[in-house]
């Protein structure tokens, strides 16, 4: 019987059948310090969260700094500082080659890799929460395949919807293709005002197959130049990034955060199951529709300008979840930071490991992300068994 409530209980009319109170007390004698246990559960979680966020921000800073210094041409840190400090009236002027490399090439590319990584990771975290499955990513509803099909049709058949403001024809077509694919999968799975998760996944598989079919057909009829350009796009690259690409993805990222962050509590409730979430007053259908829409936008935008980049949306939220728990209020923004850091570092590797050549970033994320993910899953398994 709880100690702190016992005064209240004494004041209450006696329970009708006397006796059970003794059974209760015998069953589990609660330590008076139990409130401390609740407090310490909280503080342990908080510590893990602070540490995780600090590490993610540290990795982001590392990615940003090393990404500016390293590359085909190494720019000394002093020059990088001069590039940023000089316009503010501090220090000497940087060399003109520094201005050209940093300002025109490296800075927009770094910025795109960071906002793109953040967008992919945020989309992944949202989809995993919506589908109650740590393996879900926007590919589940066919976004990536739709993007690929759109890009292929624009490149090979020359069919495009005209450039959207700030987007080239291929990117615009990929963007629209990705959104159409996810919309189609979602509409298909919706029946009598409800979407069944399993139906949605099956619809996503079908949409994926259709998208890949279109892609395969286009690859088959493409000429050599088109093939080369499509292959490059499919493997993903931040090379040749423009500030307008950065602006697009950053704008989508802002929209994604604004839409998803208020859903964090609802996604937490959804983790208990759809019925339990409904019990708790969560409008499950609305939350799911919003989360899928936001994740599709984020993914389609990033993939449209940078091509397919696998694993970031899976690995970044997974690391954060393992380190700091499944609560979405923390998971969503921190996954975005971790995703930015991962993508920034992956792009750095893509630019530097095989100099003077580049490795497509999709190859880097897959070759490094795959084994890393395996190790992570294995380690989590072992710990789950050993600890406690």
């Amino acid at each position, binding site marked *: 019987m*709880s*100690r*702190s*409530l016992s005064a209240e*209980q004494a004041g*209450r*009319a006696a*329970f*009708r*059948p006397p*006796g*059970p*109170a003794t*059974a*209760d007390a*015998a*069953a*589990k004698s*609660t*330590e008076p310090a*139990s*409130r401390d*246990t*609740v*407090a*310490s*559960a*909280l503080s*342990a*979680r908080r510590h893990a969260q602070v540490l995780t966020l600090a590490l993610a921000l540290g990795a982001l800073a590392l990615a940003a700094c090393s990404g500016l210094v390293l590359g085909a041409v190494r720019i000394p840190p002093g020059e990088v500082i001069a590039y940023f400090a000089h316009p503010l009236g501090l220090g000497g002027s940087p060399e003109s080659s520094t201005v050209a490399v940093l300002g025109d090439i490296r800075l927009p590319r770094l910025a795109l890799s960071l906002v793109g990584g953040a967008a992919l990771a945020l989309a992944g975290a949202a989809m995993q929460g919506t589908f109650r499955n*740590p393996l879900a990513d926007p590919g589940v509803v066919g976004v990536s395949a739709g993007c690929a099909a759109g890009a292929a049709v624009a490149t090979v058949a020359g069919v495009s919807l005209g450039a959207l403001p700030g987007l080239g024809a291929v990117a615009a077509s990929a963007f629209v293709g990705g959104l159409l694919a996810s919309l189609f999968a979602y509409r298909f799975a919706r029946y009598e005002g409800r979407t069944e998760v399993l139906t949605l996944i099956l619809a996503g598989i079908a949409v994926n197959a259709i998208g890949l079919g279109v892609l395969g057909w286009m690859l088959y009829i493409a000429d050599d130049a088109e093939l080369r350009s499509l292959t490059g796009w499919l493997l993903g690259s931040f090379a040749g990034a423009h500030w307008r690409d950065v602006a697009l993805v950053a704008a989508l990222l802002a929209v994604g955060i604004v839409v998803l962050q208020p859903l964090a*509590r609802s996604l*937490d*409730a959804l*983790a*208990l*199951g759809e*019925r*339990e979430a*409904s*019990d*708790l*007053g*969560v*409008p499950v259908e609305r939350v799911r529709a919003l989360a899928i829409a936001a994740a599709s936008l984020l993914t389609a935008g990033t993939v449209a300008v940078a091509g397919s980049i696998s694993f970031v949306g899976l690995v970044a939220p997974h690391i954060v*979840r393992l380190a700091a*728990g*499944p*609560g979405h*209020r923390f998971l969503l923004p921190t996954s975005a930071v971790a995703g930015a850091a991962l993508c920034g570092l992956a792009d750095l590797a893509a630019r530097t490991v095989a100099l003077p050549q580049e490795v497509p970033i999709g190859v880097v994320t897959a070759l490094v992300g795959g084994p890393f993910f395996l190790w992570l899953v294995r380690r989590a398994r072992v710990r*789950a068994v050993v600890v*406690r």
Partner: protein
Amino acid sequence: MTNAMAAPLPAQAALEADGLVLALPGRLVLDGVSLALRPGRLTVVVGPNGAGKTSLVDLLAGIRTPDAGRITIGGRPLASYSPRQLARIRAVVRQRPPLPEGFLVAELVATGSGGVVDERVAAALERVGMAPYAERRVETLSGGELQLVDLARALVRATPILFLDEPTASLDPAHQHAVMTIARERVEDGATVLSVLHDLTLAARYADELVVLAGGRIVAHGAPDEVLSEQLLAQVWHYPLEVVRRGERIFIG
């Protein structure tokens, strides 16, 4: 428990159901069930497997819509409550508690208090005797422990109506009594409580009213003492169950 969460909604709520029908393909699950639940009363629903007990809870809690019949809470039709209002009026503890991977026990209970781990969470965990487990991950709990934690999650919501669907299914006898004692506490506080139970001795001991459901119909409804006869038990469960009375207590086996 305070009812701070239920601010503009009534602190007490009666529930009336009239002529509820629920049909699944090829099967009539509920066939005209009428029932009134009142504040300060513990109604226990018993009945053989497949009698429609869980379906009845789903309808009364507004999770499923009946094919016919009407339900009012506090005089208002159930359908007129928004999901959020409904969440503040009633809580459901299920046979199979949720098991969200990675959650700490305190965090799971806090989903009942809008995600905030505060003294309400501590008090609810303490009430079910699970406070020492607050920082454990939910995957490490036994079935019985999980059921107690899920009860704490409902207590933290301090709703005027509480549904318990076999809340004692995975519990040892001492904890079965502990849980039913907590149910009675909510009742003494003025809550409207309905519990589904399989253990007839437990039902007889704690119920104010006993509802016997069989084949989707209410076959008996009244004080446990009046309802529980060997004749009725044999009719409903098709098994010669014995009723032993010792003083005020009734034992069935």
